[in-house]
């Protein structure tokens, strides 16, 4: 008895308790809902069976039905564009800003800190602000574009099928920018200064130093930023109700918002669950790629 108690105080038992607590937490709050979701995607769900766990097995019927939805391919295309364009924008502009603020001019760290505002703000609020900026008749963006002479016509960002998706992309880039910049700044700061000095003496110009020192040394940071960016973008929800509600005619609808519409507007929970499982598989795939890419990490 006292052996067990001792091992719980310091020994294997203690380790098990610590790991166990975390595992219980994870299983209850992430594992169970996930499993429930997957199970639901293989079941027939309607209003009457909503409350019960055991429902008629549906096989892949839900998956077939989702793919056969007329808007499926449009939403898939939108999701890919949304994810790719948002991540590219967040990453490239974030990296540029991180490099800019790494230059140590007076006030650099203060101004960098101010960028956090975008990260702290709730997505719905950001969506609200961008809704004003992007408004067709009184929006600031249109006023600027017209003032600069870039366009004559009034662009209805949120209701023009050609622009509606991009309206959300722009807002999402702004929302994720600070997070990207911050993580990349930390990665940049971790590269020892004397490496750059050595490279400079070895004859590398600024571009070569970036290409041969900065990028390879940032590999794991970049991997983390991109995978977190992918997850964050796929999970992005708040901006859609605030800006376009997926419309017009699903031209700005993406998988995450579509799943929500299925479940909570059309009450087709089986299809909603199915779409989430499909997204989950995609994220899982990306995570595996990321984990594999950091396995050979080099940091001296």
């Amino acid at each position, binding site marked *: 008895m006292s052996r067990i108690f001792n091992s719980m105080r310091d020994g294997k038992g203690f380790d098990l308790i610590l790991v166990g607590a975390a595992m219980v937490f994870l299983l209850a709050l992430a594992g169970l809902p996930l499993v429930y979701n997957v199970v639901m995607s293989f079941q027939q769900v309607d209003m009457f069976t909503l409350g019960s766990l055991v429902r008629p097995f549906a096989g892949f019927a839900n998956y077939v039905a989702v793919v056969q939805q007329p808007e499926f391919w449009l939403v898939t295309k939108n999701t890919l564009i949304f994810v790719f364009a948002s991540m590219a924008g967040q990453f490239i502009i974030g990296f540029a800003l991180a490099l800019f603020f790494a230059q140590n001019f007076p006030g650099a760290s203060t101004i960098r800190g101010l960028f956090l505002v975008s990260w702290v703000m709730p997505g719905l609020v950001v969506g609200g602000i961008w809704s004003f900026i992007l408004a067709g008749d009184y929006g600031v963006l249109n006023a600027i574009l017209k003032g600069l002479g870039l366009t004559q016509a009034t662009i209805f960002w949120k209701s023009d099928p050609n622009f509606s998706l991009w309206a959300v992309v722009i807002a999402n880039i702004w929302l994720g920018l600070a997070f990207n910049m911050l993580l990349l700044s930390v990665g940049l700061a971790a590269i020892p200064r004397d490496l750059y000095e*050595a490279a400079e*003496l*070895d*004859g590398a110009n600024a571009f070569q130093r970036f290409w041969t*020192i900065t990028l390879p040394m940032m590999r794991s940071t970049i991997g983390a930023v991109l995978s977190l960016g992918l997850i964050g973008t796929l999970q992005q929800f708040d901006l859609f109700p605030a800006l376009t509600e997926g419309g017009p005619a699903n031209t700005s609808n993406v998988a995450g918002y579509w799943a929500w519409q299925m479940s909570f507007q059309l009450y087709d929970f089986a299809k909603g669950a199915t779409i989430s499982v499909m997204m989950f598989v995609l994220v899982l795939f990306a995570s595996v790629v990321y984990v594999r890419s950091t396995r050979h990490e*080099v940091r*001296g």
Partner: protein
Amino acid sequence: MTTQIELSHIDKHYGVFHALKDVSLSIEKGSFVALVGPSGCGKSTLLRSIAGLETITSGTLKIAGETMTGVPPRKRDVAMVFQSYALYPHMTVEENLTYSLRLHGVNKAEARQKAAEVAATTGLSALLKRYPRELSGGQRQRVAMGRAIIRNPKAFLFDEPLSNLDAALRVHMRKEIRTLHDRLGATSVYVTHDQIEAMTMADHVVVMRDGVIEQQGSPLELYDHPISKFVAGFIGSPAMNFVPGTIGADSRSVNLEINGSLSLPLNRTLDTGRKVIVGLRPEHLVVADPGMATLRLPVAVVESTGSMTYVTTNTTPELTVVETRRMNIRAGDSVDLTIAPEHVHLFDPTTEQAI
């Protein structure tokens, strides 16, 4: 002999802090110059100014006859070995060595060929495929050296390259660097705060203090004729003993203010009653027979390393004496010391300059 690096009236300010003050130095082609001085005296700043990693506030710097004002480090054709080695952690030893060649468009086969040659001279042949994190401190040091050698630069700049190694390896690498320097016919500037390193490796030693060059010359010149108390105390190990004193009535002796009053003969004439600081090197103080001794002092500590005996006297200020003979002296005994008049250094107590 041509001048390879020429510094004239260099000043460097960090904001309000004046790090280098009117530094002028001319470094001969093929010479090995050591910059020594206590921590914070501006050695690294001077070296980094030569490399172009720091911009000088005023003055001119020439490398191989060309003025370097506004020339970026990568166009100066100098190589630097950093104290931290600054190896590229994501590259193998071979890639580290060939980095500069690849940047300059040398083709792969030729670069590998050169890397193999350099690896052979630095003893790295078996390690070419390893990453820096898989090397010992000494091996990393060699990679840093190899990376500098492979470029055949106009000058090598070393910033305390051996300070992260253990004592035995340091002594070994000291010789190796000097041999390499001679073989390559290179021009080297070597920063160290270890005066023994400077004395043993360099042809020309530059002693710095608070951003100023205090004295420069060959190692023996600095040892024999230090121009100030600072240089005298810095060069030589163990450090020179300093005792306050007054010139005696005959003008050719000095009375030491130690353990009462004891007198030492001088080899020159000075004004009677003048206050001085007397500098006595431990290795110049000789334990003598009682009859011919000039100083009789009580002993505090006797330490022997087998080949050397270190005697510390029980006086204020205490004196250190180094003898190569074995001594039959113990703590509490008295010891009789002499010193040849030509070995007595005198310094002015206010200016601290040599008299």
